[in-house]
């Protein structure tokens, strides 16, 4: 296929994905807006006012970047895992498999669709956060690149989960038992400097810690970890997950008999 045909196929997948999550906006865009508003009210306003400062900022300001990142992570992942599994479940994955769409374009299309929802929800949550606190972005490019790369990482994760999933239960297990705990323990609500040295070390095994801190550095200018290292980790996750997702597509795992 020529580059123009490939781009048309890629853009078709992206538009289809965006059309899907905007068509069901009550399930995709509204819930994170409500949940994050509750986080801001309960953790930020009610409890946060008693906590005082964290990392040199009032608690609401400190958790806002983490909450934005949390919504980006869960929505990027959730979009691809549910959309690609639904495509498998309804067998309309066959529409793509019979067509001359290269596997990398299929992956890129779904990941871009997932990132689009993650970033869209991120913008909504950022706008909501401005009702509760002031956010001044310290490093715009670090902020944008972190949020985009993170959305890509979790879209890839959602894709791999969907390839292996055989039932709707299978697409709920990872978000519930892996993603949510890692997000909560990834420095969204606290600085890992508050933890004993051992648990600080354990926390550094959590990939979400690097993303949350990198994003927080972009907005507030403070981080628990080295930003260069954080970026290297995020890019490594993209390479590893992307390569594995391509391997699954090339072998037809879960989609070809």
């Amino acid at each position: 296929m020529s580059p123009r045909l490939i781009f048309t196929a890629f853009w078709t997948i992206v538009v289809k994905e965006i059309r899907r999550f905007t068509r069901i906006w009550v399930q995709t865009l509204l819930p994170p807006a409500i949940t994050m508003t509750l986080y801001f009210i309960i953790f930020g306003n009610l409890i946060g006012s008693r906590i005082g400062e964290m990392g040199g900022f009032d608690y609401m300001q400190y958790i806002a970047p983490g909450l934005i990142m949390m919504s980006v992570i869960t929505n990027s992942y959730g979009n691809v895992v549910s959309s690609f599994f639904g495509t498998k479940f309804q067998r309309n994955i066959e529409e793509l498999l019979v067509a001359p769409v290269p596997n990398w374009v299929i992956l890129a299309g779904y990941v871009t669709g997932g990132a689009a929802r993650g970033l869209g929800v991120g913008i909504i949550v950022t706008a909501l956060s401005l009702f509760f606190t002031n956010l001044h972005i310290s490093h715009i490019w670090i902020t944008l690149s972190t949020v985009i790369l993170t959305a890509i990482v979790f879209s890839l994760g959602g894709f791999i989960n969907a390839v292996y999933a055989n039932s709707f239960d299978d697409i709920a297990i990872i978000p519930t038992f892996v993603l949510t705990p890692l997000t909560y323990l990834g420095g969204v609500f606290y600085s890992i400097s508050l933890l004993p040295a051992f648990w600080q070390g354990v926390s550094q095994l959590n990939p979400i810690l690097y993303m949350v801190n990198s994003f927080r550095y972009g907005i507030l200018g403070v981080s628990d970890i080295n930003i260069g290292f954080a970026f290297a980790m995020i890019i490594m996750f993209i390479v590893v997950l992307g390569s594995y997702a391509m391997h699954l597509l090339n072998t037809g795992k879960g989609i070809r008999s």
Partner: protein
Amino acid sequence: MTPALKIEGLRKTYKNGFEALKGISLDVQEGDFFALLGPNGAGKSTTLGIVSSLVNKSSGEVKVFGYDLDTEKALAKMQLGVVPQEFNFNAFEKVQDIVVTQAGYYGIGRKQALERSETYLKKLGLWEKRNVAARQLSGGMKRRLMIARALVHEPRLLILDEPTAGVDIELRRSMWQFLREINAQGTTIILTTHYLEEAESLCRNIAIIDKGHIVENTNMKSLLQRLNIETFIFDLAEDVTELPELPGYSLRLTDAHTLEVDVDKQKGLNQVFSGLTEQGIHVLSMRNKSNRLEELFVSLVENSLDKEGAA
């Protein structure tokens, strides 16, 4: 001339050890209307699944208009349109969106995709339903939607896996007419069906597959010529109490005014009519007792079973 589809030594063994295809070879010429028949589990859908890139082959070679499915995958896929056996579209998408999206997968820009979707949805009587979610369509409409979707990139080879399953007679006839038209315009068609009348009516060439082997691959005419005896049913004008005698023919009375006659193709029907007329029996109408292809199909599949049993 390069065949529209060339299959050589195609084998498929599933992970559970089931050997669905045992080295089949098949050529379908450009412009043909070709039937691939076989009982359930014979390997029809596996064959078409491999050609459509939905099933991984174990070994063998598949070429679509000369393009190798292994080494020139994109070019091979561009030539192919596939109408699967089961509905496989997003039931929540609108009818026109499904067709336009499929065009996009083939690199067709949105403007052209919209034009083509209008053309094919109109041809298949779905234009009025273009803004309806696919789940709201009737079964027949869903089948036609899958045909429109398969044609939107204007493939040279159209594969239909039981396209008229569950479709009422009127709609089936109109779909046959539509398929004849696109075949006449140059699209090669490969069809699987359980309605042998459908294959007999539409197809010029035929392959019968059973237990992973091609047991017959010939043209429809010569296949049907192999049937030496046909059974005809005569509806009689008056009741008959005694079985008439016609030397050289086997006759049965199923009731007082219905006569079944086995006719050898070498003898023809003239002697039957003259013999009955001589005996004062008047025939009101006549019809074939059963589908001829069906008889042949059953005998070929039974032979294949016998051979397997003997081996």
